[in-house]
């Protein structure tokens, strides 16, 4: 696997693909990147109305190498390289969806989606309602999101929480190999616009595929680790951090449940409250900035719906309220980490410093 351009090398980012596996990988193991590619191939084979367009998706092979090889397999009509014109090609995706196609638009990263925000918010999200239900926009937008690779203030946004604010959009976040492989089909089946956020730190994640699993929904949260003492509620790139924190806490005798939201709009209130009512404590982990964050929304819903089941105030671990700095020590200090999550869990449990 050649290194995609937009990705720092392995030594600086533990998320790089191994150059060549010494032992043959088990057929059930897969990388997040390969799972996403498998999903794209399956969708392109399944429905002739489906096509992929975006910057450098074709000849370059995708800036994260997700669409590598698809141009050769499906040709330039269906793997469509676009100029650097986010507003135009996202808007064109909206039009093509209205016109009967099933476009998958790749915006290289969420940072550049800001140039297309008008189209996404004012058109994709509104057509159905403001046309009185006459027009639907079955558009799928894939975007890389997230920080953690020293890319600085303009390339490290986690804006999925912003998008989750907008009625008319659906926001889904694959954080596992199975979801990377199966969420796209669910998104394409939606009559409404779906944004799929892929955290850039996950592309090289490897994991087992669940045998026999061919379809998932984009409606429900999932329990990724059952536990009794506290509900750790998260999604996307923060899921591995929460699972790592849960392991450390288990060694300290603390048994936390990890909830992967999967869908940020709509939010699966039932799953969140079910977990919180069992554990009676909640910590929300979100890579967005704290003020006005998705974590704030979830916290509010817990307070609204499960206040009397709580044994402690709901807590949050979010990103410090700074444009993400380049220097590694500063960036690390700004972002949620297993250490910060462990400390926050202990705080909610009233156990202070880890002993």
């Amino acid at each position, binding site marked *: 696997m050649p290194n995609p351009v937009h990705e720092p090398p392995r030594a600086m980012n533990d998320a790089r693909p191994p150059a060549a596996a010494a032992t043959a990988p088990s057929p059930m193991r897969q990388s997040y990147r390969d799972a996403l590619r498998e999903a794209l191939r399956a969708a392109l084979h399944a429905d002739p109305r489906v096509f992929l367009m975006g910057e450098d998706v074709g*000849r370059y092979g995708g800036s994260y190498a997700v669409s590598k090889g698809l141009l050769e397999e499906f040709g330039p009509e269906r793997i469509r*390289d676009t*100029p650097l014109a*986010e507003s135009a090609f996202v808007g064109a995706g909206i039009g093509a969806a209205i016109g009967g196609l099933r476009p998958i638009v790749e915006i290289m990263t969420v940072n550049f989606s800001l140039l297309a925000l008008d189209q996404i918010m004012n058109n994709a999200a509104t057509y159905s309602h403001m046309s009185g239900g006459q027009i639907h926009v079955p558009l799928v937008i894939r975007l890389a999101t997230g920080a953690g690779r020293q890319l600085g203030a303009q390339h490290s946004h986690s804006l999925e929480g912003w998008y989750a604010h907008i009625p008319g959009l659906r926001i889904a976040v694959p954080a596992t190999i199975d979801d990377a492989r199966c969420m796209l089909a669910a998104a394409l089946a939606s009559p409404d616009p779906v944004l799929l956020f892929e955290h850039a730190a996950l592309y090289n994640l490897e994991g087992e595929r669940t045998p026999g699993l061919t379809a998932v929904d984009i409606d429900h949260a999932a329990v990724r680790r059952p536990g009794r003492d506290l509900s750790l509620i998260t999604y996307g790139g923060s899921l591995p951090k929460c699972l790592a924190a849960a392991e450390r806490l288990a060694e300290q005798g603390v048994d936390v449940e990890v909830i992967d939201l999967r869908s940020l709009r709509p939010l699966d209130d039932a799953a969140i409250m079910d977990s919180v009512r069992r554990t009676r404590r909640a910590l929300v982990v979100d890579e967005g900035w704290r003020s006005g964050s998705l974590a704030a929304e979830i916290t509010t819903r817990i307070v609204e719906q499960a206040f009397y089941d709580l044994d402690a105030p709901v807590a949050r671990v979010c990103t410090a309220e700074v444009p993400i700095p*380049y220097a590694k020590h500063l960036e690390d200090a700004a972002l949620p980490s297993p250490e910060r999550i462990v400390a926050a869990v202990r705080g909610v449990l009233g156990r202070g410093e880890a002993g």
Partner: protein
Amino acid sequence: MSAAPEALVTREHGLALLGEMLRIRAFEDRCYRLYGELKIRGFLHLCNGEEAVAVGAMRALGPDDAIVSTYREHGHALARGVPMTAVMAELYGKQSGCSRGRGGSMHLFDVAKRFYGGNAIVAGGLPVAVGLALAQKLRSATGLTACFFGDGAVAEGEFHESLNLAALWRLPVLFLCENNLYGMGTALDRAESEVDVAAKARGYRLEAAAVDGMDVFAVEAAVARAAAAIRAGAGPALLELRTYRFRAHSMFDPQLYRDKAEIDAWQKKGPLITLTTRMKAAGLMTEDDYRRLDAAAAAEVDAAVAFAEAAPWEPIADLERFVYAEPGA
């Protein structure tokens, strides 16, 4: 395209330009190595091959002029006079960096040099350049604003909106399109229905010309001419500087979109070769001159690395500084 008349080229002038280009080349080559050593991280976009654009343009601009750049801006910053030590320290993420380690390679800033930064959003700098020029005009300042951007930026709406605004308001902006034929893996002719960037600018009634961006004298002369016209009140102008990037887009680009032969062919007309061949043919320099300047550049880069290595880190306690202006700022 027009080259500067040979007669105007003096030994002193030519060697100064060569020395500047060698500084940039040595700096970029060292950055490449430092990236492999994990000293520099994040995205790193090197400008090897494009040195004549940076050096020719900066030579023709004055200290009152404002500069707006892109994420491929090491050369622009160095040619502008941002100290190499401060640029290298920035790439190390150190407090002594020109953006205190908070910007990194894509966000070099030095307001004392009127260097208003590298921008990592393609075309993101053009509207800002229009505004800087508006301020210059309304404040009757002497300077103009020079704005660098790549060929890829020409597809963005911000390019078109900015050119129109600058022309409509007759602002002192010089748009400098660094056309290296590719935006990442996308060749210009696969991104543009009309590949003549100058022709697009003329559509907005800007003065526009294409220049051989491998010829540092030609760049300097063209920028000087355009700047003089802008200073005289002629309104904005655009120069398309035709060049080529010798290295990958960023550090891990497998370059599937272009072949080695193409790169080799361009390397034969690179800015360093072009200048030295001409100067030598005119009897204005010797191989010794080249070696001396090259050694000076290497020594300056060594000193910059030593400075960056020794420089302090910004304290973590200061993480949330500078999000807003500090009292007294």
